[in-house]
C-alpha cells in the first residue's frame, strides 16, 4: 500500500494542532491501516513525551541574591522613600511622636512665667495664689509656676503646674486636685486632657 504524499507533514501539523479537518481525517484513516506510519508517528510522540518528561529544574539557591548584588546601585533617595512606603504605620507613628513632643516641649518652654486663671476673689502674693478663707471660687483654677494655698472653697478642679498646692484644713475643693511638676507629667497631663476633650466631643455628638 502506498502512503499518501505529505503524510509526515500532516503528522507535524497534527502535533502543532494546525491541521485542517480534511487532512486530519485522512491522517487518522491512514494510521489505522499502515503499521509503518503508525510506528513513525508513535516515535514522534515518544520523542516529545521524553523531552517533556525532563523534570522541572529549579534555579540554584541564592540566585536572586546574586543577581541583586550584581545590579548597578540605586539612588539613596529611592530607598528612603521605599522604607517609608513599606512601613506606613511606623512612619505615621514617628511623625506623630516628633510633632507631639515638639509642640509639647515648645508649650512647656513658653510657659515658664507665672500665670493663674482669672477668677474673682483670688489673692496673689509673691507667686502664691491664695483662696482666702470664707471665699467661694466658682470654676476651675490653674496655676503655672507658682503655689496655690486654699483656705476657702473651690467649686471646680484645681491644677498646679510647677508649683505646690497647700490645702488648709478649712479649705475645700469639690473637683479634682492635680499637681504637675515634671516634663513627662506635663506631657501626660496634656495627653489626658486632649483625650478627655475628645471623649467629651464624642459624647456631645451622641
Amino acid at each position, binding site marked *: 500500500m502506498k502512503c499518501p504524499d505529505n503524510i509526515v507533514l500532516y503528522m507535524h501539523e497534527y502535533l502543532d494542532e494546525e491541521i485542517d479537518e480534511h487532512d486530519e481525517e485522512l491522517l487518522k484513516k491512514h494510521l489505522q491501516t499502515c503499521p509503518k506510519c503508525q510506528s513513525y508517528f508513535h516515535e*514522534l510522540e515518544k520523542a516529545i513525551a521524553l*523531552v517533556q518528561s525532563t523534570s522541572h*529544574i529549579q534555579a540554584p539557591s541564592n540566585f*536572586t541574591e546574586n543577581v541583586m548584588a550584581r545590579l548597578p546601585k540605586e539612588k539613596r533617595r529611592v530607598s528612603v522613600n*521605599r522604607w517609608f512606603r513599606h512601613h506606613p504605620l511606623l512612619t505615621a507613628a514617628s511623625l506623630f511622636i516628633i510633632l507631639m513632643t515638639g509642640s509639647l516641649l515648645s508649650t512647656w518652654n513658653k510657659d515658664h512665667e507665672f500665670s493663674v486663671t482669672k477668677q474673682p476673689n483670688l489673692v496673689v502674693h509673691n507667686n502664691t495664689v491664695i483662696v482666702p478663707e470664707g471665699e467661694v471660687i466658682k470654676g476651675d483654677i490653674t496655676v503655672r509656676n507658682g503655689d496655690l494655698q486654699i483656705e476657702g472653697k473651690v467649686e471646680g478642679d484645681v491644677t498646679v503646674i510647677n508649683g505646690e498646692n497647700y490645702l488648709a484644713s478649712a479649705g475645700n475643693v469639690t473637683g479634682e486636685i492635680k499637681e504637675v511638676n515634671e516634663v513627662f507629667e506635663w506631657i501626660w497631663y496634656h495627653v489626658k486632657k486632649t483625650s478627655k476633650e475628645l471623649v467629651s466631643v464624642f459624647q456631645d455628638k451622641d
Partner: protein
Amino acid sequence: MEALIKKRIKQVLKGDQSAYGEIVEIYKDKVFQLCYRILGNRHEAEDMAQEAFIRAYINISSFNIDLKFSTWLYRIATNLCIDRIRKKKPDYYLDAEVSGTDGLTMYSQIASDSILPEDEIENLELQETIQREITKLPEKYRSVIVLKYIEELSLNEISEILDIPLGTVKTRIHRGREALRHQLRNV
C-alpha cells in the same frame, strides 16, 4: 500576574531596585531552565540566566510596557545562550570517547557523590540521555524545541522571542522533532 509584573516594572522604572527582586524571584526557575536546556550545563546556565536578568534590568527603559514581559526576558536569555554556543566551541565533550580506552566516555570519569537507589539512578540516566540528545540538536532547532516543549510556549510567542517568521518556527520545530525522533527512538 501580568498586572503585578507591570506594577513592579513601573516601580523599577522609578528607580526602586528591590521591586526587581520580586520579578527575578518569579521568573528565575523558568529562565534558568531555559538556559540549562539549551546549554546543557548548570554552571553556564546559571551565568547566562543571571546575565539575562542583569541585562533586562539595565535595559528596562527600552521595554515596551504594553508587551508581555516574559517574552522580552526569554528573548534576552535565548539570545545570550545562542551567542554563547556560537562563540564557544568547547574543547571536549563529556560524552566524547576518552582516547586509549574502549568505549569509555568522560561521564564514567566523574565520581558520583552520593549513592542513589537503582530506579532513581535509572531516572537520572534517562534525564541525562534526553538532555544530551537535546544538546546534540543544531542550535536553531534546539531553541525552538526547548521553548515549545519545556517552556510550553505558543508558536506565536516563539516567533516573537526569536524574532523569526511563524513559518520558520514551524519548519524548525518539524525538523527538530524529526531529529529527536531519530535520536530517541531506541531509548
